Every structure is written in structure tokens, then in C-alpha cells.
């Protein structure tokens, strides 16, 4: 390619609408699908009404969510469209009203379920990214933009909260749902660990599988203090026979040898025994029935949550969890046998970027939970005082608004992260562009982390090799390369899986049933 052609492409990459494109794509995605997904995850708000004798249970069903474009409600009660410049000048928030369909449903115990009240109600206001699909200035030409006081070359991609422009920092996290094998030291010995950050619907659980110094495999996951024997756990998940366990880990003779050592040490043989043993760990000192119940709950709730999927049976999920643990075990053994090197955490294949839409989704999820708790409380109180239950009188829209605006205004995000939103750097035009394309590593800047700060070969074409601050943040704060393309998660995993199945992939959960025994 000759130089002038290259220049054309280069210029295209630096055109106005490309500069903050990752923000728009991510946020539009959140507006169009993400919000509804969060609502669908929640689906209902259950109440304690009906716990008492002779009372019918009441719950709220959440339906479709709808969002308008930003508007302002004046003190005199009138409502008008709001443009970004007005929001900046009047120190108000550039936010759009959000409506949700809600139905209060009573009954189900003795009487049939009846809808008490069903309306679409305003649940709050969502701050809107300037330039996104729901922004009032999208589709305006330069002249129209100038007329409403906007700068036609302003890239957008930020929010306006209480008049100040706030950009959400892209954060660079370790890829979830991936096995990372590495060395660790425990009591002075080197051990091998396989780690997975399992993530599903905002819940994140770290699962560790380590091979201790006597060669035994142990698994630790949230809600269980300490660790559980690998063999006990896979047996509890339904992978019972010695032969099957070994076969599922590896066919390599040396790994088989390691596995046999583990099996010799195993003190449970059947699934029932394994669940019993697990129950003693998670609820020691409790009654036996409770122990079993708790053990099953822990397995389904806290162990590798990312393997759960709608439309896949519990039994299949469990066996998949067992297979997954076997993969982790294999990674440990391979590392011990020097068949592979430890995974590189700084490799860009092991990184995922959280852009504004993902961050807003986290925020919206907790805000909706808070709203649900408030609705539950209001319903219970209205019921106790024998009032009619109506949607409009139990929804308090400032709950959601507050929960959405406050983190953007202060930068204190859910999950204890701070500095997520920053005041847009308006020192000059280049400052804005650079700020919108900046990304931050969650690692602490007060610790050395030399490897994390180093330029990694896989950053080629993705991250600018030279633009990073001097001082404590050096190498932790980075900037996108000019021609960086950010790929997005697929919309519908089911269709991807069906596609893969049609191409001949076998044993995909939810598409075709796994048949663990016959191979």
C-alpha cells in the first residue's frame, strides 16, 4: 500500500465519530439490550406478604423497560427537552426518564393469581452519554449543533451530572471464565495453582484448584472456608467412578499416576457420601438435613457460577462443573510436569476491557435491586395498613435516580472501586481526545507490579507504546492506539452455540445433551 492510501486510512481512524466510538457502542448496547437484560434477570420482586395465615402472597412482575431522551422537569412542573449545553450551564444532570411495566399480582396459594394493578410507571432517571443513541443531539448537522450551543467537533462519550462532564474510565480486568495456571508458594514450597474468575450476572467468584506439596489436589471457592478435596468435590458433582475421573482429567500416563495418588487418598466413594462430607464443611454443627441442603445450595450457587445458563438442566450443569474442574486439575499437573509454562497475566488475550456500558450495567443492577427493596418495603407497609396496592404509590423514582447519579458524580462505583468517573480534561482539545481513549489497570499504584507496567508484546496495535503518565501511574494508565478496534461480546450465546453444533461440535450444554459415559 502506498503512502497516500495509508494516509487516507489513518485519517479515517481519526475522524470525529471514531474517537469515542467504543464508548458509544458500549453504552448504546447497554441502553438497547443491557437494561432489559438486567430487568429480566430480576424478573420479579417477591414480598413477605402471605407468610401469615389466611393471607394471599403478593409479588411484582417486572416487564418491559423504556427510556426516553433527556429532558428537564422545571419547578413549575413543565417538562422540556434538555440539550447538553443547557445542562452544563444550569448545573443539572443530562438524564432521561426511564419507564418500566410493573404488575402487582396477588394469589397463588388458595385463590388463583390475579393482577391487582398493572401500569407502566416512571422508575427513575438515567444519565445519558452525550452523543449516544438516546442523546438529543444525535443526527444534528453542524449548523444545528452550533444553534443549540454545541461544539460540532466535540467527540461526546461522556456524561453530564450536576453540570460537570464526567467520563467513565475504561478498566482493564483479568479475563473472567478462563483457566489461568500459575506457580505459587505456600509454606516455602512451590505449588501449582489453576485459577478461574467465574462471573455471571454481576456475581464474581474466584475458584482455585491447587496441587499441594504432597501432590494432592484441593479446590477452594467462596462460602467454603479453606479448601475441599478435588476428588470429594467432583464426586459430589456426580462424577463417581475412579476410571471416569482419571479419564476426564487426562490420558497422559504421568498425569494418570498423579491422579491415582489422589484417588488413593480419597475418603468418599459415592456422590451421597461426598455431598455429606461437603455438608459437614459448609454447615458444621447443624442438623444433617440442613447440611445436605446447604451443601447442594453451595454447589449450585457459589461454585463456578458461569457454567449456569438458562435452559440447561441442573444435572447437566453439575456434570459440566465437574468436567471444568478436571480441566483445572489437568492444568495444575501439566504445570507440575513442565509440560506447559505458567499463563502470562499481562498477555492481552487474558485481559478484558470494561467500557462505560459494562460499568453502567453494574450500576443499574445494584440500583434496580435497591429499588426492588424499596418497593417491597412500601408494598408490605401499604398492605399492613390495608391500603389498596397500586404500582404508582409504591414506586419511589428518586431511589434509582440517586443510585445512578451519585456514583457518576463522585466516581465511587459499586463494589468499592473509586475514581471510576473523572472530570473530562478540558485543558485542550487533545486532552479531551486522550482522556476519552484512556484505560486504567485496577492494580494499586503504590505497589511495584513491574511486569504489569512493562510494555507487553501483545499490546502491539492496541495500546499506544509511548503515552503513559510519568510517576506512580506509569504503565498502569494506558491509552488506546490510533487504529485500535474493540471487539464486543456476542449478543446471543445460544445462537452461537447452535451454529457451532451445526458445524459438528459435540457436547455443548443446552444444545445437545452431554453423554458422559459412553466415550
Amino acid at each position, binding site marked *: 500500500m502506498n503512502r497516500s492510501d495509508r494516509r487516507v486510512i489513518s485519517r479515517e481512524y481519526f475522524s470525529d465519530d471514531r474517537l469515542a466510538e467504543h464508548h458509544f457502542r458500549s453504552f448504546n448496547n447497554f441502553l438497547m439490550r443491557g437494561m432489559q437484560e438486567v430487568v429480566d434477570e430480576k424478573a420479579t420482586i417477591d414480598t413477605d406478604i402471605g407468610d401469615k395465615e389466611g393471607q394471599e402472597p403478593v409479588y411484582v412482575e417486572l416487564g418491559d423497560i423504556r427510556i426516553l431522551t433527556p429532558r428537564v*422537569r*422545571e*419547578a*413549575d*412542573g*413543565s*417538562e*422540556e427537552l434538555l440539550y447538553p449545553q443547557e445542562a452544563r450551564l444550569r448545573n443539572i444532570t443530562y438524564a432521561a426518564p426511564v419507564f418500566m411495566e410493573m404488575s402487582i399480582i396477588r394469589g397463588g396459594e388458595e385463590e388463583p393469581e390475579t393482577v391487582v394493578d398493572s401500569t407502566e410507571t416512571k422508575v427513575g432517571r438515567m444519565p445519558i452519554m452525550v452523543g449516544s443513541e438516546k442523546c438529543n443531539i444525535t443526527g444534528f448537522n453542524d449548523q444545528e449543533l452550533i444553534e443549540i450551543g454545541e461544539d460540532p467537533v466535540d467527540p461526546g462519550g461522556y456524561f453530564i451530572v450536576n453540570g460537570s462532564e464526567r467520563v467513565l474510565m475504561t478498566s482493564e480486568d483479568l479475563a473472567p471464565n478462563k483457566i489461568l495456571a500459575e506457580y505459587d508458594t505456600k509454606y516455602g514450597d512451590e505449588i501449582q495453582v489453576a485459577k478461574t474468575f467465574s462471573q455471571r450476572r454481576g456475581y464474581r467468584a474466584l475458584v482455585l484448584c491447587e496441587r499441594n506439596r504432597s501432590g494432592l489436589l484441593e479446590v477452594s471457592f467462596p462460602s467454603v472456608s479453606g479448601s475441599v478435596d478435588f476428588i470429594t468435590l467432583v464426586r459430589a458433582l456426580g462424577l463417581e467412578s475412579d476410571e471416569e475421573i482419571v479419564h476426564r482429567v487426562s490420558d497422559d500416563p504421568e498425569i494418570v499416576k498423579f491422579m491415582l495418588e489422589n484417588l488413593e487418598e480419597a475418603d468418599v466413594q459415592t456422590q451421597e457420601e461426598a455431598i455429606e462430607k461437603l455438608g459437614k464443611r459448609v454447615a458444621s454443627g447443624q442438623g444433617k438435613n440442613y447440611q445436605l441442603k446447604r451443601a447442594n445450595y453451595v454447589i449450585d450457587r457459589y461454585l463456578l457460577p458461569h457454567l449456569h445458563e438458562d435452559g440447561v438442566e441442573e444435572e447437566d450443569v453439575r456434570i459440566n462443573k465437574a468436567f471444568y474442574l478436571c480441566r483445572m486439575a489437568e492444568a495444575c499437573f501439566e504445570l507440575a510436569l513442565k509440560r506447559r509454562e505458567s499463563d502470562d497475566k499481562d498477555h492481552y488475550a487474558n485481559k478484558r476491557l470494561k467500557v462505560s456500558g459494562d460499568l453502567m450495567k453494574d450500576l443499574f443492577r445494584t440500583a434496580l435491586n435497591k429499588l426492588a427493596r424499596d418497593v417491597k418495603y*412500601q408494598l408490605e*407497609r*401499604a398492605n399492613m*395498613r390495608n*391500603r*389498596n396496592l397500586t404500582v*404508582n*404509590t*409504591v*414506586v*419511589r*423514582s*428518586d*431511589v434509582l435516580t440517586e443510585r445512578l447519579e451519585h456514583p457518576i458524580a463522585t466516581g465511587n462505583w459499586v463494589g468499592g472501586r473509586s475514581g471510576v468517573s473523572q472530570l473530562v480534561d478540558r485543558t485542550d482539545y487533545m486532552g479531551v481526545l486522550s482522556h476519552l481513549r484512556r484505560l486504567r489497570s485496577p492494580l494499586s499504584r*503504590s505497589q511495584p507490579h513491574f511486569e504489569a507496567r512493562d510494555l507487553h508484546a501483545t499490546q502491539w496495535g492496541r495500546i499506544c507504546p509511548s503515552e503513559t503518565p510519568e510517576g506512580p501511574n506509569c504503565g498502569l494508565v494506558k491509552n488506546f492506539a490510533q487504529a485500535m478496534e474493540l471487539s464486543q461480546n456476542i449478543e446471543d450465546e445460544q445462537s452461537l452455540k447452535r451454529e457451532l453444533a451445526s458445524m459438528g461440535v459435540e457436547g455443548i450444554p443446552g444444545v445437545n445433551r452431554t453423554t458422559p459415559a459412553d466415550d
Partner: protein
Amino acid sequence: MSTTRHTCPECDSLVRKQNRESVCTQCGLIIAEDNLDRGPEWRSFDDDASDPKRTGAPLTPTRHDRGLSTRIGRSRSTSPRRRRRMARLRQQHRRSQTRTKRERNQRNAFIDIRQHISALSLPKVVHETACKLFRQAQNAELLQGRSIEGFTAACVYAACRMVSISRTKTEVVGHTKATDNEFDAAFKALNRELDIALGPPAPAEFIPRYASQLGLSAATESRAHEFAIDCRERGISNGKNPSGVAAACLYTAALELSDEITQKDAASVADVSPVTVRNTYSALQS
């Protein structure tokens, strides 16, 4: 300390406030000195994990304890046993916060008022005024035999009228758990006992809201305002429902500027019958 003076006592020229001193711009006389430096604090907390906050939020009349509450926080790094203990403490603490039935009622009422305020999207002033009214009503023992729901609704309604951003009764009651009768009983008691001296709301207060609901132009809205003033001067609005008068003003203005609305539309946003609109309309025309 005479910080309120605007001229210099020596030379009678302008006084300017600089950070903590009031200085004469002409002769440089320092008239007053404020010992508090109100400027920003030049300390950095960026690398410090400790919380730099030294005060809480200001007192607010919108909470039963005026915002001076103590809460027992949560921590992830406590043992399950300690966590259970803290949960029990939290429960006891919550129970001890409302000692009497009156305090509990006030707390619940304030939660309701907050809900009404957010449902009607009213500003903070109304919120505070409504809460103050409720407190007054409680101190005057007005609540005996009347419903709390009625009172919260009536307080919000009265507060709106006090700060001249009136809402109609139907609007307020529609967003609350109160019934019409409860509302009437409570509002009558408030009006009679608390001596809040509310005049009838001016029709002009309703105009911007109805105009935006009907999607009318700014020109129509300002013309309607003129009609509203005209109504008051000519005494047309005397004894009429102000909301209906506002609707009639808007309708008349819309006709004049050929914005298309019907009497029925105007009447429905104002929650009156088309006849009311028609009557005021013909009075305006004459």
C-alpha cells in the same frame, strides 16, 4: 463584625470580599476579618485510605431525626459470628431509634412524603415545607382520629401552594395512598388549626405545566400568561377553579395563535369539565 456593609466607612467607596477579609477597593482599609478561611483545603488525600470527611451532611427537616442518625455499618472482613452479632445490634439499634408511637408515625409519614415528592417530581423546598407542616400538625395534636396518609398528602398539597407551584388536589391524591375523604379531613384541619393562610392559587401557576402537557408553543404559553393576568384584573377568575381558568387561558391563547387544541383536551389536563373551560373562555372573549 459588620460584614454586611457594602461601603467603606472612611471613604464611602466599594468594599470587596477577598477570601477572609473585607477590603475597601479605594483606600485599602480592612473593614472586617473572618477568622475562618473558606477557601479550599490544600491537602491531598489521593494516596490516603483514611476518610478525610470531618462532618456529616447538614441538618434537614425531611428526616424524623433531622439527619443526625447513627448507623451501624457493615464490613466484609468480620467473622460470621461477629457479623451475626452486628446484625442483632443493628436490629436493636433500629428499634431504639423510635421510642414513641409518635416518632414512629413521623418516620413513616416522612417516608411517605418522600415518595409523594418524587412521584410528583417536586423540588426540595416543597419537600422541606411539607415535612415542617407535618411536624407542626403533629405538635398541634391534629392527627388524632385522622389518617396519616391523608395528612402526608395534605401536607404536600399545602406545601405546593405555599411556595406557589400549585398542584391540583386530584393530582396529589392520585399519587398517594390517601382517599379523597381522608385528604379533605386532613387539609381542613391543617388550614383551620395551623393558620397557614393560603389564598386561592393563581391560575398562572398552572399554565407552564399544562402548556407542556398539551405540547403548546412558548408563544402560546406567554399569551396565556397575559390572559391569566387579565382574568385577575377583570375579576373573571373570582370564585372559579384556578386550574380550569388556566386551561381556559391556554385554550384562548391557542385559538388566537392557531395552535390546535380542543376544549376537551384543555379540560382533561386541568381535570375540569369542558363546560368550565367554555365559561371562562366566553368571559374572556367579552
